[in-house]
């Protein structure tokens, strides 16, 4: 059975069913989505289990010629990185559907757009053809506009428009960049493995790399093009924020990794110091801004900017050599850990908002005694963000910090400073919202605390964070082979001596 196509087919079939049934068949729509998410999850587990880490490289490759004369083929395959990211998408998809189970407003449209988004994300992680990579990338971006606009809250029209304009502006940079890669190679093929093996002229790489990096960097929420992401997170409904921060931003980082660094290694080496500095600024800046926020979702939104900065920094450090393996392992680990953690954050904030209709930190105070279970979930996510040992992010952040200290000590200091600041703004939220004197206004919430099956999605996400906190090998074993191969490939470029040319 073509496993990867089967994973893609789960949401696609569900989308077909959802579009065909009448809008009033709400139960059927929900169950279709949940079952397709479950099926995709089981297949992703199977993929994880059967990916051969010893052999490494691209596996489960499928290939169907699509437009032969234009060099486009439907070409799927996974390496260690995409395997764990597919898993991440399945987890967030499943928990996202469960989080939105009680949605009443235009259910059919919501789940249709959500399924379209999920198809796009799977497509990006699985595609080995540059055309389809970009095709699915745009498919994932499209539904964000209606999802935020129709089902969002607060300043949603502004947020939706800003988000879409930012992302499509990024695409405008990608468009010529990707096509330039294709024409410069002259292979009449968009096959990413062939392109990665093609020795591009270093000057060409140096010219094109910024377009690719910045184009994808917008989606990765990189400073200074992160403006869309906190506003977008805040306005979006919970499941969309989960997918948005949990998965969508990873697409940007994954694009930098698999198009930028793999295909244009010399360009990556040349530009790495500059972009590493930007990422470090992003880490500290995001944390500082998060400290001043009064809205739960804005705190998390800016924490995402800060945490995604760690991913982008890790990717750039990976190119720079000294501690490449650690940096890249850390960056990819952080993609996964941050995805799960943010999903947990938005899932629980969405829950608290549903019950109290407030996201303002100052409104609460002593919520811990009123909604103990929900608050505990939030605290787990918060501590994970602050890099507490025993939770997944610890390993990721430690690996990148170590690599940064070895390569550029100043950047190491920036990361560690960022983590300290994370602890500050997270603890500030805890104190102000959860551990003060109880606000009598929320007495009624005790009856509607997290209970029953509503716990399931949150418990699942916490479980993943804890398991990985104690057994980071689950991820590291999966990605290490791919990382080493990639870093060795980059090391061969050293004789080009591009580093520091900038």
């Amino acid at each position, binding site marked *: 059975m073509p496993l990867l196509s089967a994973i893609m087919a789960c949401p696609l079939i569900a989308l077909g069913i959802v579009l065909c049934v009448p809008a009033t068949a709400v139960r059927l729509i929900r169950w279709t989505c949940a079952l397709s998410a479950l099926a995709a999850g089981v297949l992703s587990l199977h993929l994880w289990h059967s990916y051969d880490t010893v052999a490494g490289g691209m596996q489960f490759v499928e290939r169907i010629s699509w437009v032969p004369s*234009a060099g486009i083929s439907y070409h799927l395959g996974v390496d260690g990185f995409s395997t764990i990211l597919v898993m991440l998408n399945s987890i967030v998809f499943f928990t996202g559907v469960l989080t939105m189970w009680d949605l009443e407003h235009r259910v059919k449209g919501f789940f249709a757009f959500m399924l379209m988004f999920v198809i796009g994300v799977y497509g990006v992680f699985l595609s080995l053809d540059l055309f389809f990579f970009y095709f699915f990338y745009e498919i994932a971006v*499209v539904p964000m*506009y209606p999802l935020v606009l129709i089902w969002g809250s607060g300043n949603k029209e502004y947020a939706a*428009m800003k988000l879409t*304009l930012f992302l*499509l502006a990024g695409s405008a940079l990608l*468009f010529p960049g990707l*096509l330039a890669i294709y024409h410069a190679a002259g292979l009449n093929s968009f096959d990413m493995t062939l392109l990665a093996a093609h020795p591009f002229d270093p000057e060409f790489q140096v010219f094109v790399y910024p377009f690719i990096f910045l184009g994808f960097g917008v989606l990765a929420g990189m400073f200074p093009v992160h403006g869309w992401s906190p506003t977008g997170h805040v306005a979006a409904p919970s499941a969309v924020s989960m997918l948005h921060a949990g998965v969508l931003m990873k697409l940007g980082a994954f694009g930098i990794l698999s198009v930028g660094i793999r295909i244009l290694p010399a360009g990556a080496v040349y530009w790495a110091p500059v972009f590493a500095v930007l990422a470090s600024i992003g880490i500290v800046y995001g944390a500082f801004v998060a400290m001043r926020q009064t809205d739960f979702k804005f705190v998390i939104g800016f924490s995402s900017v800060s945490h995604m900065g760690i991913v982008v920094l890790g990717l750039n450090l990976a190119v720079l050599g000294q501690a490449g393996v650690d940096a890249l392992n850390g960056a990819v680990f952080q993609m996964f850990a941050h995805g799960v953690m943010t999903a947990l954050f938005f899932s629980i904030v969405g829950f608290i908002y549903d019950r109290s209709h407030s996201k303002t930190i100052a409104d609460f105070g002593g919520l811990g005694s009123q909604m103990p279970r929900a608050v505990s979930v939030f605290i787990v996510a918060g501590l994970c963000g602050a890099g507490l040992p025993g939770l997944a992010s610890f390993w990721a952040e430690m690996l990148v910090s170590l690599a940064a200290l070895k390569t550029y000590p100043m950047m190491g200091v920036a990361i560690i400073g960022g983590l300290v600041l994370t602890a500050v703004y997270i603890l500030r939220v805890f104190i102000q919202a959860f551990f003060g004197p109880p606000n009598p206004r929320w007495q009624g919430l005790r009856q509607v605390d997290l209970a029953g099956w509503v716990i399931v999605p949150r418990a699942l996400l916490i479980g993943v964070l804890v398991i990985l906190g104690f057994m980071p090998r689950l991820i590291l074993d999966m990605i290490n082979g791919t990382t080493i191969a990639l870093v060795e490939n980059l090391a061969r470029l050293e004789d080009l001596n591009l580093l520091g040319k900038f």
Partner: protein
Amino acid sequence: MADIILFLPEIVCLVMALVLFFAPVCAWRYSTAWGIAIVAGIAAVSACLWTWPMEGEPFFAGIYRIDFFSQLVKTALALGYLLVVAISRDPRTLRPATWHEFPLFLLLSTVGMMMMVSATELLTLYISMELSAYPLYIVVALHRNRSIGAESSTKYMIQGMVASAISLYGMSFLFGLLGSTYFAALDTQLGALALQPMFWLAVLLVLSGFLFKLAVFPFHFWAADTYQAAPHEAVTFIATVSKVAAVAILCRIAALVLPASESLVHARPVLMWLAIVAMTLGNFAALRQRDLKRLLGYSAVAHGGYILVGIQTLTELGLTAALFYGLGYAAMSLVCFLVVCEVGRDQDTVPIESVSGLYQRSPLLAAALLVGLLGLIGLPPTVGFIGKWFLFSAALQQGQFGLVLFAAVNAAIALYYYLLVIRQAYMVEPVSAQHAEPIRLRLNAVLAAAVATGLVIAMGTFPGFFWNCASRAAAALVG
């Protein structure tokens, strides 16, 4: 007389036009005339498909050429005509007394366009161009509100005639240089002529008549006014079928000078700058529009610019991409105008507010509008995405990185005004109770919507077949 088969699509259309001519004369009911028009469309499409594999020069050698290119474009023209007629069952913005004539004029214009794409001689080209243009000048004037009809029609006609006069002027230059009106004469003399600036001036002047149809700067002034004020069904025809013909002729003329594209120091930058100005002007002007048809008019100006990006490369790949995008654009445009026709059935103008709450009034139309606009933005899974991909790819093959970057940024700017329309359809509640009633679609409109939306998505997700057709056509053209 085997040649007559080659001429089949045109003959079918002419005969059916003759039949339709009797509709007003014998005072048939409109439903009868409409039925005949539909039959004409189906017959024309079948005739075009029948002649797909054929090739030859019926009647007079060197004047009229049937090849894969001409038959592919004719199929698109006939299909476009059929779909436009299919949604014109109840064209209330036209004067009721003129309903009978409406399909007749569309059919005559289609015949003209069909002849235009086969013409390989200057006079044939010019005459068929006029044949395709005059019926359209008339249908624009058939608006039920005479002052609106007169204004938009006058603008359209005067500018159209000026453009065609410029074209004719260019043709006279060409004749002077070549000593012949046959395109075939160019083959032998192209090498020498390509070195003369006068030749390139003549080519550019000839092109301008067709740039008018495509609404490319500096011949775009009519677009906004005519789109806004003409009867909805007439605009639908102008915005779809007429564009296909224009793109086809631009490809035809570009293909003529293709072998000399190395010495193109004069012509190519001109076309490139026209493309740049058209894109920018169309997109920026559209940002401020409050009228849906006017907005689509400026969007047409911008899309003319995108298509010109493919043509100005003067390569076979570029022409293929332009043709592919032209066909796709016609489908996307048809989807949008179909929604305009249904939503604005009783309105002289269609402000953007008219589509408010469309998702409640007619989920099908709302979905169609979404697909059409996503296509115009250039997002997958529609033909707008892959069409732009091919166009920009052709330009980058010529190393025009800056142009592609500029066009891509332009597409991102255009996003804003298209999204406002999507927002209105999906998000905003209807302005009044009268505008909140569900829209009941007739079967013919549903079928037309299904075919057009299906084409937009099929060309976007399974482009292989359509791309191969376009490249075969371009190969036939370049020879």
